[in-house]
């Protein structure tokens, strides 16, 4: 009895220490989030003069101002991401299907050409791609961002889709082929419903990737109205740094909302998407 009690006590002590440590780390990790939320409700004067004091009155106009400024770029960003992600999914599932179900001449070589791209970092051909975009006449157009996004995204997408589609039993296809189904119908009616999980993983992974892209859009898009929200935020920060810090912080909150919403609704898949690229690549 005594022995049991001691063991339980030890376990309890351990659990408490774990819990305390975790809470401390958690609070520290949330500092930037708390800080941003807190500052976004204050006036510029309050931030400059009394940094830690709670706002006398919550300044909601910080949010409306930031939203008016960022709305156009947010909508633009989301539109570009939707187009790119849909294209990535369509091309990945088509390519993955071809590689997984067909034995065609040149298959090994073509797959190798895709795998090679995983090994080559983007910085190798950043200069070349920039000038090529210029030569294609795409500079300062949305396509200058969307097309490279798709090309970059479908590398991982095709590989993940191929692996996933190879797991579909080939009996299913043979049966359908006997019924006179062509490849297009096979893909739409059999494959896609079966590999939906990997498609959603790829989709989430790419949404997060694209939303976080910064350097490339900054290089190829000059007009503010076509620019992504993350790049515009830097301009926005510069504009308001001295006159409206609260607005800047409100802008950060607003620009984080899309991923927040995505995360809350798909948190399990979100975490899978996060790790899938790293592990399977």
């Amino acid at each position, binding site marked *: 009895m005594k022995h049991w009690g001691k063991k339980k006590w030890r376990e309890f002590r351990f659990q408490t220490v774990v819990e305390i440590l975790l809470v401390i780390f958690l609070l520290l990790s949330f500092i930037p989030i708390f800080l941003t939320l807190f500052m976004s409700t204050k006036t510029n004067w309050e931030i400059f003069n009394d940094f830690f004091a709670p706002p006398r009155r919550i300044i909601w106009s910080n949010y409306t101002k930031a939203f008016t400024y960022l709305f156009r770029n947010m909508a633009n960003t989301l539109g570009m991401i939707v187009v790119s992600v849909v294209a990535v999914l369509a091309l990945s599932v088509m390519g993955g299907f*071809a590689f997984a179900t067909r034995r065609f001449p040149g298959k090994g070589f073509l797959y190798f050409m895709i795998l090679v791209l995983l090994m080559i970092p983007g910085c*190798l051909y950043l200069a070349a791609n920039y000038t090529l975009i210029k030569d294609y006449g795409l500079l300062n157009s949305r396509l200058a961002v969307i097309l490279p996004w798709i090309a970059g995204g479908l590398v991982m997408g095709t590989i993940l889709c191929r692996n996933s589609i190879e797991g579909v039993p080939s009996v299913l296809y043979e049966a359908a082929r006997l019924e006179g189904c062509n490849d297009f119908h096979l893909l739409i009616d059999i494959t896609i419903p079966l590999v939906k999980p990997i498609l959603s993983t790829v989709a989430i992974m790419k949404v997060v990737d694209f939303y976080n892209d910064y350097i490339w859009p900054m290089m190829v898009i*000059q007009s503010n109205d076509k620019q992504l929200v993350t790049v515009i935020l830097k301009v926005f920060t510069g504009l308001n740094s001295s006159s409206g810090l609260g607005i800047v912080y409100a802008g950060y909150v607003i620009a984080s909302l899309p991923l927040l919403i995505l995360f809350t609704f798909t948190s399990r898949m979100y975490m899978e998407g996060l790790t899938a690229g790293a592990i399977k690549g």
Partner: protein
Amino acid sequence: MHMKKRRLFRIIAAVCLVLGILGLLFAVRAEKNAAPDETVRRLELDTGGKNRSLAYDEEKDLLIVGTHEGIVTAFRDGETVWQNAEAAGAHAALVLGASGETLYSGNEGMHIYGYRLADGEIFLDINVQRLVADIAVSPDESRIAVVTNTGQSKSNLLVYDAAGELLFNTAYKSTTLRQVAYSPDGASLLTGNKKGELRRVTEEGEELALYKTGYDILSLRDYDGQILCVCSDGSYHLLTEDFTCLRTVRINNDINASITGGAMDPATGTVFVGSEQGYLFANSAEDLPVYRETFSSRITDYLPVGDELWFTTITNGLYSLSVPAILHTEKGSSVWTVMRAASYALCGAGLVFLILGIEWLRKRVGRLLFRVWRNRMAYVFLLPTFVLLYFFAYRGIFVALTRAFTNWSKTNYHQADISFVGLDNFKTMLTDSYFRVGIKNLAILMVVNILKAVTVPLLIAWLIYNIKSDKSKFAHRFLFVFPIVIPGVINVMIWQKIYDPSTGLLNNLLGIMGMQSWQRVWLGDPKTALASIMFAGFPFVAALPMLIYYGALGNIGEEIIESALIDGAGRHKIFWKIQLPLIWPQVSLVVTLVFISTMQDYYTIYIMTAGGPGISTYVPALELYMNIAQFGKYGYASALGITLTLCTLAVLGLSRLLRKKEAE
């Protein structure tokens, strides 16, 4: 029968191939001889100053360039014919006299000079006592009109006779005249001013007509009855003699270049507009944008000559732009194209007959084609993927790999200007201070980032793994991953704000804790900048490594842990002796990922300090970006890219090799 047929095929094949190859060689050679010029060609003419104005006499084939320093130089076939440096101020405008013997210059040193075209001697020198903006010479060369400015907004239109006697003087108040031109018949004058008003006036100054463009008129020219005004908002107006507007449109200036002027190629109706930053825009006669290129410094004057546009930039010299090339009207005849196509067709037919003529080849190719045909859907499915990859990946890689060994840059942009420099770009790296600082910083960042990724996330994963209740486990995992909803870029911006010297959290925190002496300009001080960048993200609970470790810990069988517990092993011992060795592959995966991202990602540093203060926080990848975006040194940037790639691949290959050996 069969034998005969096959032999016939082989003979046909031989004939086709020989003809095809000969035709191809011939076509390529002929085409090379008749090849159209490059779109833009740099004219190797050095005036020794900043070029301001141009004039060209067709009869004598003299190109005359006036500079900011007051030098006038005449060139013929790339050779200097004469040079005159007697004038004091900048030559704002050069105008040829109709006689073909004279050249007039409107000089900002308050003079009008007349030069003899033959030898460059000054034969006329009028002191106008005001700042000259532009001059015009009447078609019979009996009059010289000049617009001048004094003070803020006083302008004069002066008309002199050929001997330099002042005939008429019209004063304008509260306006700044910019441009003047004679009408082709010499009966009236056109003036343009800063308010955007185009006026037709008599020599006496009497106003005949008025047209309002609304924006500062920067260029005004009369092309035999068609008047072109280029305005500061990037619009141009093409008018008839009676000011009826024929064409008006704004050039597609979405990059906000500051317009400095423009001109028209009268033969094709192509309008050119130039900017302060060296952009040259062209719109076709249909007002569609056909060309845009940057020449890095202000474009100061334009000259349509034949089917070319000659123009000069203030510091980068003269260029010649082929108008047909930008309008895509092919100069060369299409005969060679047809011939080449025919040759290709012949070669193709030859190959087909060759295959048909050789039995085993025929069988093999037949089987291959059958397999290709049966799997045609696979190719259709892969086609868009590879088209995209070709244009946005393979092609770039190929260009980077070849051009890293050239002097490719913003100024040496066109194939014609690019030359092979061997390993020079790589040698530059060794002596480049940016690169040396960058390598040092990269080494520090590498060690710190790897340490960050293998300590705190592993600790947190282990702690969460050890929680008893599943609900609490899930909640903690969720909460620790949650901060990644803040996009990485925004997180960096927030941290930048945290380091702000006056409104940042860090200094304010130190302030209320009474540690004022610890306050710093964190990102602005070379001593603390790099450390501050590395500290950003505290307490370093990165979600990705944490999830990887957590997943790995969860995959270890419960029995192993339990049996160890029964054996009396403490949690410490279990971690070091059992868990850590078992999740070692995941740890090395995280190290690999961190290694790759530290090598390549520089957006954190770019946003926080942009490499500053000075060059104290540069890393090679940031230097690569700066060489593209700021310095336009594409060849050097590609060389940096190759170096980074090789380093990454070498380290990854080495670690893979080591792991294989370990496994054995």
